[in-house]
């Protein structure tokens, strides 16, 4: 295998990308959202066909005209949005579309045996091939997705942000699997936002910006981080986290959570948030962080404990009451839980605030657009056209819609679950600054992030969560990443 070379003429999404991948290497693909990474891998996977340019596979010109022909060549793809079917078992998912058959009948036992083999290879031999995929965690679903890729006879596997849904231990396992694959001569194209991961497993890097490769085939070992960031953004990136002014001691407590619990998920969680304070929830995936926040918000019904907003107790399990009390949630799954993708931006922004724009149930669309425009300007939402559908925006700007929704509503307690998930490095700094500015303006903010660094950089106070329990409440200046992990390890071992 000599590698792949691709070149595109002046097309919209991709304007000339060169990339070659050698057998047994991990080739990282880096770039901001909208830089064309996803389009590029969809070309390789046969989902899109390039308008111009050529693709050489083992030195010969190859034509990928559909997903099946990509697989036939030996190229498998793991997409960012987990593409597994919830209602089927692990084994059925892995062999979906290429079932082992004899005379039209699926050979279930052969599939199950092969599935067990693949799961073992991926370090998840404890998963049953008969388990229904809908019952698995996001990390386990990813394993299924990877097993499916490996069930083909492949030479190149493309992983689009595989670590986005994984916690620390799972990421280590992922790296182990990747190394095993490369030692067998399989090439990996690895897409990530996390520079640390590139350092950990990458061999070479190609950086994309605005649909073109700004740097191709750089050696990871020889390239300093600031060079990479310059290639990505066109500018050097300094301290991304805004300064913390510190919370005034006499700032009123606006959100008070007392002994909150939900059977089977978490119990006895108590903390307070003052006006102007950012509280960050750190912990591993599956530790119960999202569940806690959703229960505070009333989207899940608490089984014990209570939530007070400015001294007034919230009824359990009522989103409506929480919203009226001034809470606003920006959910973890932006697309499936937060936005109505087909609807225009301004309608997404005013979704929670109809009462403000309606008289006797009749909406004043002009006033809605004006209010949306104000927020679009204040949050620097791009493109600044309120009539565009929400689906047309990048992840960072979609996140801004959710912030704008609660700002229009006048919410003063914002619960932000993974606000920078799927948001590129440049736009992240912008989101951080925005969140800090909101806190400075007197809002109380609760942030969840799987990236401990992010929680530490952004929050005033850090709550460390492990196994559904609040392990520790610390000032963020008094703890570092290792300290948090230490607490998590000790807490969950006990």
């Amino acid at each position, binding site marked *: 295998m000599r590698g792949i070379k691709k070149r595109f003429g002046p097309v919209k999404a991709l304007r000339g990308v060169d990339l070659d991948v050698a057998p047994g290497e991990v080739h990282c693909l880096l770039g901001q959202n909208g830089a064309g990474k996803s389009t590029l891998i969809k070309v390789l996977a046969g989902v899109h066909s390039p308008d111009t340019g050529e693709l050489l596979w083992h030195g010969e010109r190859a034509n990928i005209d559909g997903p099946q022909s990509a697989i036939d060549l030996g190229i498998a793809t793991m997409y960012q949005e987990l593409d597994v079917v919830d209602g089927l078992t692990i084994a059925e998912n892995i062999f979906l579309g290429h079932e082992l058959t004899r005379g039209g009948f699926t050979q279930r036992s052969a599939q199950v045996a092969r599935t067990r083999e693949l799961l073992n290879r991926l370090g998840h031999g404890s998963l049953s091939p008969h388990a229904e995929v809908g019952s698995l965690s996001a990390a386990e679903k990813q394993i299924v997705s990877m097993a499916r890729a490996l069930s083909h006879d492949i030479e190149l596997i493309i992983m689009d942000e595989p670590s986005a849904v994984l916690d620390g231990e799972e990421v280590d396992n992922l790296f182990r699997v990747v190394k095993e694959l490369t030692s067998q001569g399989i090439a990996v194209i690895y897409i990530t936002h996390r520079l640390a991961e590139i350092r950990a497993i990458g061999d070479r890097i190609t950086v994309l910006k605005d649909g073109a490769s700004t740097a191709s085939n750089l050696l990871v070992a020889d390239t300093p981080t600031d060079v990479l960031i310059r290639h990505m953004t066109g500018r050097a990136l300094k301290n991304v986290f805004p300064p913390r002014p510190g919370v005034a001691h006499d700032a009123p407590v606006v959100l008070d959570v007392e002994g909150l619990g939900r059977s089977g998920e978490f119990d006895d969680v108590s903390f307070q948030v003052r006006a102007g304070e950012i509280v960050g929830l750190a912990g591993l995936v599956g530790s119960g962080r999202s569940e806690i926040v959703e229960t505070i*918000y009333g*989207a899940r019904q608490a089984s014990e404990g209570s939530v007070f907003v400015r001294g007034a107790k919230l009824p359990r399990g009522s*989103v*409506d009451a*929480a*919203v*009226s009390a001034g809470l606003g*949630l920006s*959910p973890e799954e932006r697309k*499936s*839980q*937060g*936005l*109505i*993708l*087909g*609807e225009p931006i301004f*309608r997404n922004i005013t*979704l*929670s605030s*109809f*009462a403000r724009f*309606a008289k006797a*149930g*009749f*909406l004043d669309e002009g006033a809605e657009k004006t209010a949306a425009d104000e927020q679009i300007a204040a949050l620097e939402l791009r493109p*600044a*056209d309120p*009539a*565009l*559908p929400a689906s*047309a925006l990048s992840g960072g700007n979609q996140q801004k819609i959710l912030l704008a*929704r609660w700002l229009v509503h006048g919410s003063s307690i914002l619960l932000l679950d993974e606000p920078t998930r799927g948001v590129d490095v440049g736009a992240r700094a912008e989101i951080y600054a925005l969140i800090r500015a909101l806190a400075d303006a007197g809002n109380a903010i609760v942030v969840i992030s799987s990236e401990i660094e992010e929680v530490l950089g952004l929050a005033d106070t850090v709550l460390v969560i492990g196994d559904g329990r609040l392990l520790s409440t610390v000032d963020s200046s008094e703890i570092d990443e290792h300290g948090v992990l230490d607490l998590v390890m000790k807490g969950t071992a006990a």
Partner: protein
Amino acid sequence: MSTQSTDTTGTTATPPSALRRALSGSAGRNLGLVVALAVIFAVGTITDGAGFAGLDNILVILRQASVIGVISIGMTFVILAGGIDLSVGAVLALASVVATADALQDVIVENTHWIMLVVIALATGFLAGLINGVVIAYGKVAAFMATLAMMVGARGLAELVSGNRNTLVDSSEFKRAFNVDILGVDILIWIFVLVAAAGWILLNRTTFGRRTVAIGGNREAARLSGIKVKRHTMWLYALAGTCAGIAAVMMLARTTTGTATHGNLYELDAIAAVVVGGTLLIGGRGTITGTVFGVLIFSTLSNVFVQLNLSSSVQAVAKGIIIVVAVLLQQRFASRPGQ
């Protein structure tokens, strides 16, 4: 958009992007429906001559469309929110026999006012719809199953109430009140126009309409934004039931008879009209205007077939083909990368 404030001439050409956006929006989708309706109309005119395009025949077509039309307006809301209501035809029948039941007519209508007959029919439709809504929203039963049960149950109840006989409307005032033309147009057509206009306003200008679209577009996002999704869902089915009640009054006006066989398969005609009119079956997108066109397309078509003396079987085949072709065409329109 932001440069419009500096545009003083007011006559500068519309930028092509705005035009394209308009075409790929709801106006563009409705354009396809206008063309389809025009084609059917042209076929009718060519094959049948001046009689078809005459005002009298157009009024016949509209009158034919009116009952299904009113049901379809309610159905549009339910489908927009991602639901379905299979019970509307049966609820229509139930409302028609309840309102004309001997006991009720003797006691209430004779002693009060003919308007009570209308009130009873609407209340029956509303209640049946409300039951659907409660079962679906709070009982978490799939809309398809809940309304299927109502479809079977309401039809059976209608048979019980009427004792399998046709029950006549006794009130001559009722018959007189609904046997009028306004500006030469049958009152049934006016009712359809009014319901459609009210539906348009409800969908496009009120929070109720916006919430409906939001729930259909992304139920979870709507819930997490503080919209009371369950309560709203309940009212949607009550609305569909009320529309069936209105349709029942119209049937009573047209036939002066209540019977358990009224409205047979109307639910399918209404769903077909809504979907042909461009409303997505999964919800989140649709228009009242589209639904009105959907209804008119089917009633014009059946008028053409009647004029040509073709059997109802031929008509049914043509209807099936039109539904498939319309949906195929709409998918082309919808997936065109307009933005």
